[in-house]
């Protein structure tokens, strides 16, 4: 038995194995979509467009005997499954996270590549990657114990006193649980993935771009913003989209600091919000006691909405990355 025949025999096994694996990953995404569609179907009929346009979320009077029927589907009386508050919160928290994380991660990536001494780079890279490994509940705990009280008791009153001329800052600042806390937590959580992607994109550029710019007498800042940044713009966008995909679906840490708003929108960055992922987790237990089952199915419909949002973001990210690869070549 020589090595060559053994290798030849293994070839089809490997081929079939990887084929199944590749097919499975596509099939799982497809099956999740089918499951959500089938399970949420009665809710889709009951809620109509209300899931995207309605503001009131009410699983109905569970201890009353009356029910309501709409489009042939029955729920407890008073039921109203408006998801706009949660769709808004999902997008708003992620957008705020991007506003914080994008410039920060660009600076960190630039520092890692150009400013950190070569000997310290492995250590610095490891530290950034370690951030990605911290479980989200740990970020959430830090959020509850440190961040939220700081926002509520220091930053909020300060903003009320000195920054009330800024539109999205003025008004009731509440407890610190809210849009800003959720945005900061999310920014920290997506920072490592953005830094890592950006660092790799910058490193993939020929170092001559930076060096030539420096040789022409520019400062590091000028070289980075005027020479390096234009060449990594697409990779930068892709990094943002990948991070956005992660932020949209983040659950536990957001749930712990977002203030779990229901039936209302925040009027400034300090007030409570809620995201689709957080509301699914927090409402599921009560939804399970809904005799009509419509609360569970409406949560599944919200999950479907989230699934579609992240799917779109991921597809756009893929296409952008592909474009970035091509432009890099």
């Amino acid at each position, binding site marked *: 038995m020589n090595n060559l025949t053994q290798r030849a025999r293994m070839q089809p096994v490997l081929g079939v194995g990887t084929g199944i694996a590749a097919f499975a990953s596509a099939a799982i995404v497809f099956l999740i979509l089918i499951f959500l569609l089938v399970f949420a179907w009665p809710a889709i009929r009951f809620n109509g467009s209300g899931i995207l346009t309605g503001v*009131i*979320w*009410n*699983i109905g*009077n*569970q*201890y*009353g*005997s009356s*029910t309501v029927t709409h489009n042939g589907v029955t729920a*407890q009386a*008073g039921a*109203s499954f408006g998801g706009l508050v949660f769709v808004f919160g999902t997008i708003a928290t992620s957008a705020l996270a991007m506003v914080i994380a994008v410039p920060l991660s660009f600076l960190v990536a630039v520092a890692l590549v150009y400013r950190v001494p070569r000997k310290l780079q492995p250590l610095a890279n490891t530290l950034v990657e370690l951030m990605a490994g911290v479980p989200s509940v740990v970020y959430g705990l830090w959020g*509850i*114990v440190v961040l*939220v*009280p700081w926002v*509520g*008791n220091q930053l909020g009153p300060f903003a009320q006193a000195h920054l009330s001329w800024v539109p999205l800052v003025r*008004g*009731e600042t*509440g*407890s*610190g*649980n*809210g849009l800003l806390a959720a945005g900061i937590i999310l920014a920290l959580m997506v920072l490592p993935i953005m830094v890592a992607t950006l660092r790799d994109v910058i490193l993939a550029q020929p170092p001559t771009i930076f060096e030539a710019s420096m040789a022409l007498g520019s400062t590091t800042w000028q070289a980075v913003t005027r020479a390096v940044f234009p060449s990594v713009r697409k990779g930068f966008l892709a990094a943002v989209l990948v991070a956005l995909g992660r932020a949209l679906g983040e659950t536990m840490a957001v*749930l*712990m600091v977002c*203030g*779990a*708003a*229901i*039936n*209302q929108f925040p*009027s400034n960055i300090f*007030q*409570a919000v*809620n995201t689709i992922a*957080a509301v699914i*987790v*927090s*409402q*599921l*237990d*009560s*939804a*399970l*006691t809904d*005799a*009509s089952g419509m609360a569970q199915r409406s949560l599944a419909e919200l999950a479907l909405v989230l699934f579609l949002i992240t799917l779109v973001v991921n597809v756009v990210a893929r296409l952008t990355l592909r474009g970035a690869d091509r432009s890099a070549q």
Partner: protein
Amino acid sequence: MRKLALTALALALTAGCASQTTTTTATATAPEVSGRLLETGSTLLYPLMNLWVASYQKQHAGVQITTQGTGSGTGISQAIAGVAQIGASDAYMSDAQMKGTPMLNIPLAISAQQINYNVPGLNGVHLRLSGPVLAGIYSGKILTWNDPAIVGINPRYASKLPHHTIVPIHRSDGSGDTFIFSQYLSYSTPSWAQGPGMGTTISWPAVASGVGANGNPGMVETCKNTPYSIAYIGVSFLDQTQAAHLGYAALRNRAGAFVLPAHATIAAAAQAMVNKTPKDERISLVFAPGKQSYPIINYEYAIVNPHQTGAAARANLVAFLSWAILPNGGNASRFLDEVHFLPLPPSIVKLSKEQIAKIH
């Protein structure tokens, strides 16, 4: 090497025989229950269940009970699905749910809830609050601590109540605490009954300063960190609320008296509801009559399917539940005091026994 393995095998065999013999003798002397049980549900009952199970398993070596704190709704649905034998719930099942699958709702103990607040300078005293005032706060009609409605029932602290926005904190997750709190508001305030109503999760009115917190630990933490906030917190978190130096309110009961949560006032409320408790024991104890009655108390339930397959499994379940409700069993003060629960009144123990007897 082979010799060693053989010796080990022989040893294992003898050990197996030996343990088998002891089990047989035990069964011969006294009919002993054994087998596995899964309990899941209420996170409020979870600490008590763990105390119970540790002690119960010591007395019954053959019994293995797994406990899980997953939430009351999960407990009920897994008991219905037959995944768990005991679904722990702070709320009794609704008529609509019972119509789908009739289950036994067996009270195991009595719990209560306090209204906590964090008002700088006033946490050391007991402010007076009522259902309509709380409903006003949680629906955004009463916005500051020196609102006439609050000052009116707290004349002693009229000058100390601050002109500061109240931050009402509610549970973001489904919760038995939300259930009994919203019952107190519904039973005492007609407009609340018609509006948000009652449930383990309700559609909270929009209040700009309002905030949701996750679980009782989240309620304690948020209330502690947020000056001028108010929260409803299960009595089993009494130690945590005291460590956080939160104030707790005297609540107006049905008779119009302001009462503090205490052993005597909770027991008085429970006693007042004994005769009203129906055979299936699904009843709210909130807003009980009587001058001494504390208004927010509830039965903690085991949700059990009356049809259990297998005689041994059935006997195991019945034995544990029967032990749990006994004054010298699970309802002993050495267990209940740890979580500040109260034992079932004797006539309720009798009703619960009758329900347990229905398991077949």
